[in-house]
């Protein structure tokens, strides 16, 4: 209730805002990090369990991924994969220097990978046997197993390349007092939980070809602030106190149109909202009941009424930019209330006078779990109404976002509404792998055929084409067993002050990365 009051409050206020300039100097900008990016303890990619946009400004990666998920050169000018997938050769861009003047050479890459292999994120290089320096600017990755996912991993911000020498020198202080990369910006200061101030790297001449500006960035100074309360962040943007919110909270999507100075930059989304269905809990042990629950979800209505038509509907588990999301259209899950009703009739659940179905004197009452964030609460109420329409009696149970994972681990859930954030098909393995029951496998899905397909997809692919085919088959089979219902895929919405900031028409990146910021400037 407070939420809706707050919304009215904001909607009702007229914009007489005296625009306070975000910064007194030209080419300075202040961005607010999205809520999934706050609370970074340091800027050390070797210990990070979560990264934020500033990582991609301080550091570069060997490979860059575009919004369409294609791979492009960055610190590696080009690369070749051996036909058997057992080795990769990367040709480094010459003349690249770290912020402290150290050159980046093939030896740097060898040292960095060595350090990476004992880091928290070492699983990303599990398939790498060793890395060799062929000459000053050529490195060879010798593989244990072919890994078509290597380029994806190398483009991830977890595989951003720090100066190995400085990391060793500073130890636990690395990434807090100092962080040395080759990126377009240098770390000036970092205040935990508050702000990160970056200044332009004037020597920068090795931008990815995805950026138009190949020299140093236009912005001389870029500050990332963390504002935990959504309404405060939006009011900062509205009053001109900040120039952009990297991720506009869904609640404020409708507000942007009413503000002449504000605009949205849409970046392809990496998030999928879905409803896991616990296949081990009655009545969902019956696949017909699972299918009925999945078919009861009206994706189009949710897109329109809950998300104001921003983003797109989801019909399977993966974001639609991934080739593995293109499964047989007959397997895609779409709203079909007639079929849902027919399936429940067939399964012996008869509609009572109150609209709730019954079987053997038991009502079709099910628990529907959700987390306390406002968007989930609103969405879950709609899902509840839709399930009710075909004869379920869903009881919503709300958990605090910080504890719901531990509740899932107990395996007592029936239905839940949640989302995940990832842009690689291996997320199917993460959420439906038979060895991760409870959490992350909230659906408690453990199926011998799926496990077989999963093993093939995870480690039995020599080429990217094979990997796509294997993951598509795995994804299709999982979907055919209805351990989840797909709901919605949002875009990432960056809201910005268009009187202050110029943003390129097409954003080349899967988020606001250093490469994207290369082409962002302040109006003078």
């Amino acid at each position: 209730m407070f939420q809706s009051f707050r919304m009215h409050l904001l909607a009702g206020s007229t914009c007489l805002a005296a625009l306070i300039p975000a910064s007194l100097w030209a080419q300075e900008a202040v961005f607010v990090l999205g809520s999934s990016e706050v609370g970074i303890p340091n800027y050390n990619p070797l210990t990070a369990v979560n990264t934020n946009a500033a990582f991609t400004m301080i550091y570069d990666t060997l490979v860059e991924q575009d919004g369409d998920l294609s791979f492009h050169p960055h610190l590696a000018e080009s690369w070749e994969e051996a036909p058997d997938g057992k080795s990769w050769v990367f040709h480094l861009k010459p003349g690249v220097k770290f912020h402290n003047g150290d050159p980046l050479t093939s030896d740097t890459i060898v040292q960095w990978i060595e350090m990476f292999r004992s880091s928290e994120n070492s699983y990303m290089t599990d398939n790498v046997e060793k890395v060799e320096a062929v000459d000053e600017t050529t490195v060879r990755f010798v593989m244990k197993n072919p890994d078509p996912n290597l380029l994806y991993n190398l483009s991830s911000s977890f595989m951003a390349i720090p100066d190995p020498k400085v990391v060793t020198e500073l130890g636990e202080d690395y990434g807090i007092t100092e962080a040395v990369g080759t990126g377009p910006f240098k770390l000036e200061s970092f205040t935990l939980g508050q702000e990160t101030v970056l200044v332009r790297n004037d020597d920068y001449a090795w931008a990815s070809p995805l950026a138009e500006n190949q020299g140093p960035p236009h912005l001389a100074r870029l500050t990332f602030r963390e504002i935990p309360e959504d309404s405060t962040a939006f009011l900062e943007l509205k009053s001109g106190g900040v120039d952009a919110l990297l991720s506009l909270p869904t609640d404020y999507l409708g507000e942007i149109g009413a503000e002449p100075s504000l605009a949205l930059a849409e970046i392809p989304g990496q998030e999928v909202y879905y409803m896991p269905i616990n296949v081990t809990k009655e009545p969902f042990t019956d696949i017909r009941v699972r299918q009925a629950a999945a078919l009861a979800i009206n994706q189009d209505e949710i897109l329109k009424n809950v998300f104001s038509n921003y983003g797109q509907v989801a019909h399977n588990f993966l974001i639609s930019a991934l080739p593995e999301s293109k499964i047989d259209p007959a397997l895609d899950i779409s709203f079909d209330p007639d079929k849902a009703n027919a399936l429940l009739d067939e399964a012996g659940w008869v509609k009572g006078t109150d609209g709730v179905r019954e079987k053997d004197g038991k009502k079709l009452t099910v628990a529907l779990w959700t987390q306390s964030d406002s968007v989930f609460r609103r969405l879950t109420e709609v899902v509840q109404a839709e399930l009710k329409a075909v004869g379920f009696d869903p009881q919503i149970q709300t958990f605090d976002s910080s504890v719901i994972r531990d509740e899932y681990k107990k395996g007592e859930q029936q239905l839940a509404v949640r989302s995940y954030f990832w842009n690689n098909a291996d997320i199917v393995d993460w959420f439906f792998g038979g060895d991760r029951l409870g959490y992350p496998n909230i659906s408690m899905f453990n199926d011998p055929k799926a496990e077989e397909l999963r093993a093939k997809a995870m480690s039995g692919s020599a080429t990217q084409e094979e990997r796509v085919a294997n993951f598509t088959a795995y994804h299709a089979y999982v979907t055919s067993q209805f351990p989840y219902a797909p709901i919605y895929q949002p875009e990432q919405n960056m809201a910005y002050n268009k009187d202050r900031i110029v943003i390129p028409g097409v954003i080349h990146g899967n988020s606001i990365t250093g490469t994207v910021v290369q082409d962002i400037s302040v109006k003078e």
Partner: protein
Amino acid sequence: MLSYLIKRILLLVPVFLAVSAVIFLILHLIPGDPVDNLLKVGSSASKRAEIEARYGLDRPLIVQYGIWLGNVLQGDLGTSIVTRRPVAQLIGQVMPDSLQLGGLALLLSSVAGVLLGVLAAKARDRWPDRLVMGGVLLGSTLPSFWIGLILILVFSVQLGWFPVSGARGWSSLVLPVITIGLGGIALVARVTRVAMIDTAGRDFVLLLHAKGLPPGRILWRHVLRHAMIPVVTILALRIGWILGGAVTVEYVFARPGLGTTLIKALNQHDYPVVQACLLMLAIAVMLGTLLGDIIQALMDPRVREAIT
């Protein structure tokens, strides 16, 4: 007096032990596992065991408590699970911000609260009294979270006088100080008013009037001084409250401080940080209470006599 002081301080020892045990245990009863936040997609079971061992989370609860308490008594608040920094250092960094905000809010509530209370008492049952008491009702019932957002809307978005959020210089302190201070002003004004009215009806005041002292002098020199005893006690008790009350306000205004540190640590299940923040808040309340008792003893001869 000295023996009273020693007695009061000794009494704090069992209170401290009880509070520390509650803080430690409650946190471990909350469902949630800090290790989850340190593991990510693809991490193995051995990685989990390694992290649990590193932070002693694999030991029995009572052992964990013993170790923690022992360390706390030596001034070691442990190491943050998320940031891997000494907790004392993290708290030390944000404490000045919290103290500044809380201190200014306390100052605002005392000065404005006493003035308004005196005004209300002087104009008892007339319109200034009604106005102040109406404001007191609002100030003490409206949630500070909401007041903060309204102040931002009016003074930052509409008028553009102050920054919306952050901690950049004095101008960014104005709105949060008012937000926290309002509740205190209301409380102090109410207590002052009641104490003033009560004192004004005492025999010694009647005597002062009979002696022909000017009413203004009676009010400010004699009545107010006497009426200050409960007000000062309330203010001392409020020291701890102001640090705790700042939690939501710091969050709304995106300010660094004990409050934002506490909320973030709670979300990340960073037990050592949460424990330290709660401990700081509890210690502030305990010291505030002690201070209140001491001031009362110093100001009120009756209490002084009773204890010596």
